[in-house]
């Protein structure tokens, strides 16, 4: 892999998407008035919706697209009256320049590798402290050391690993103290984000979520917590805060996954609490929802401490990837 590709693989995904959209708007492939919705664009680019969202917000700020009385954006500068064209993106010959295409591809493998490593490194920490060996990792994943290094520095940014005194990468141990601190942070940041997000939460989405809980389609506390993050907290118009919240939750959800994998029973009390939380948000009782969230997090913190004790029964997994070595 050459240096240039790695560079473009590192640039934020929304930047790559923005470049593609800019190019197609300028060339007229995407005509004025065309309704741009996240989903179809994400599908075309083979990415998740979050970076598309960010990219559209950016184009809006640049004056290339405008808000209108409907879902999504219209192609065209903010003050110009455009008639909405609602047609499938497939009908337009969207051009993806070669540089952007390879950026998307590189980004794709990089992301796939990253997700795997992130899950493995988060999961190992309940077993103690580990050294992460870069060369072993590159070998294990079948990628270059450059990619391995990029993955590690991203993990470092997200607070999952750190440099030890002798400059080795270290992960863990996840202690009761770490857990308590992370929940304390959640208790500070998430109610604040919910308040900021209040006016940006899509009420239809909340109604759908409530229906899904009633129909038993959302059955785990973890899935509900993800939905709460995606549809409520992420709507806060402060992307730095949203990112901090996301990073802070990483380890917590990894522990959850590890424990659920061991066969811990579903936390029905927590599921009830999410139901109430969504009810309050749906009713736009934001003050009450915020207080309720705070109390819910306090309880979750207590529960997670107890669940961590249970981990002591679990022998260190023999299937730990070989790039992790116990300290």
């Amino acid at each position, binding site marked *: 892999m050459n240096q240039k590709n790695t560079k473009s693989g590192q640039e934020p995904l929304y930047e790559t998407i923005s470049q593609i959209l800019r190019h197609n708007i300028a060339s007229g492939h995407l005509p004025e008035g065309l309704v741009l919705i996240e989903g179809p664009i994400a599908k075309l680019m083979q990415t998740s919706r979050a970076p598309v969202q960010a990219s559209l917000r950016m184009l809006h700020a640049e004056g290339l697209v405008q808000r209108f009385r409907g879902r999504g954006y219209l192609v065209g500068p903010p003050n110009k009256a455009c008639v909405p064209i609602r047609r499938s993106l497939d009908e337009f010959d969207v051009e993806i320049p070669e540089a952007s295409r390879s950026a998307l591809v590189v980004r794709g493998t990089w992301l796939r590798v990253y997700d795997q490593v992130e899950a493995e490194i988060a999961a190992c920490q309940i*077993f*103690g402290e580990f050294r992460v060996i870069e060369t072993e990792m590159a070998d294990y994943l079948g990628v270059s050391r450059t990619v391995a290094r990029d993955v590690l520095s991203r993990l470092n940014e997200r607070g999952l690993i750190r440099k030890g005194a002798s400059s080795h990468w270290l992960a863990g141990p996840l202690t009761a103290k770490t857990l308590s601190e992370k929940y304390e942070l959640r208790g500070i940041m998430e109610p604040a984000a919910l308040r900021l997000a209040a006016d940006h939460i899509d009420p239809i989405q909340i109604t759908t979520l409530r229906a899904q809980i009633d129909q038993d389609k959302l059955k785990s506390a973890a899935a509900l917590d993800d939905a709460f993050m995606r549809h409520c907290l992420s709507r806060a118009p402060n992307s730095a805060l949203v990112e901090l919240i996301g990073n802070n939750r990483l380890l917590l959800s990894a522990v959850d996954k590890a424990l659920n994998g061991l066969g811990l029973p579903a936390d029905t009390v927590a599921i009830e609490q999410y139901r109430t939380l969504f009810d309050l948000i749906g009713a736009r009782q934001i003050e009450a929802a915020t207080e309720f969230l705070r109390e819910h997090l306090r309880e979750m913190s207590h529960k997670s401490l107890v669940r*961590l004790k249970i981990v*002591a*029964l679990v022998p260190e997994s023999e299937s730990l990837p070989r790039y992790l070595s116990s300290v």
Partner: protein
Amino acid sequence: MPTDLHVAHKIASPPRVKRRKLMVRGTNVTLLEEVRKLAVADLQFDIEFEVLDFLTCQHRAALDPLNYDIYEQCFHNLDIVWYWGALQPIATERIAEWDNIGNLAKAGGISKYTWQGHGDAPVRKLYVQPDGMLDQQPMPQISMLPTAHNVDSFGFDRRLFGDEGPEGSSWAWLLDRRARGRIALVDEPAIGIFDVALAAEANGDLTFQDIGNMTVDEIDSLMALLETLRQQGFFVGSWISPDQAEELVRTDRVSVQSMWAPSYGNLGIMAGDFCESVPREGYRAWHGGASLARHLSGAKLDMAYEYLNWWLTGPAGAIMARQGHYMTNQERVRDYLSPEEWGYWYDGDLARCDLKDPNGKVVVRTGQRRPGGAYRERVSRIALWNTVMDEYNYAARAWNSFIATLGPARP
């Protein structure tokens, strides 16, 4: 055979009814053959005891919840077993003797003036709260029926340390340089860690802000201290079951070690020299009990309640007393003990005759007095409880690797 006949046959003569059986999983603390025989005699069903060591018992109770009906261990094990979802709440209205159970378990101390002790006092794990958590706010449902309990210390050789004197001994003796090379520890982390922590604090090596809930730094310091002592050859090794501990004493391999009742009655010729300490810092206490498996319902659940209620009728408590353990409803136990037995085990009196253990072996000689005295005196001096603390995952892993380097103590 034609189908209709087959069906008719089944209805006419049901298959031989197997005698109903209750499966009890627990440890050798309460699962004694004498207890089982008495229970079977009084109840209308069979009982099978599955006796496991402490760690295996906790592990299997949590991870293999379908293969037992009753779980008997300690309150400190509930943080693991209860939250794994293996158990169901006990309705106190179905426990006939509930009102006669003492305040040590129900309120945290025998009187409101006694100090509860650090760590997992049973009352903090007793009541099932509306959100499914365990706490001390009284509720009509409990996690575990409180039964046998005791306060523990350590055993020491008076030939080395001399007699205790009026001030009592000190936990410091457990890591005393005079006993170098002749010290053994119990392997169970929820117990062993606290024995050495009490010792390290008593001899001034370490201080803990809350010894019942140590921080990661405190655990690291404790483990570093133990490693240093190990390298200096302090330890003979570790033991898993009390008979291993007794064997270490009988073969004169240890001068001081983790130990508790009823081992003091099984020391043979060493009985006069190896003594139960009355530490001036206070005792390390534990509280046992019995819980209902989550899967129980209907008739099986009724059987399980019968068994729980039987535990409080007195005979089981008498057997517990003869091996040095207390029961929660003592007046019922008194009916099944001789006045001499009651006087020695509960009232701290001088033994007016030789006293036997549940197997009929003499374990107390005429004229002996129980170390620490009467029930009220002993349980008023609880320093801390066996505990599964917040950093248990971290501490148990560190402890287990220390125990592994220590190796078993082979008599």
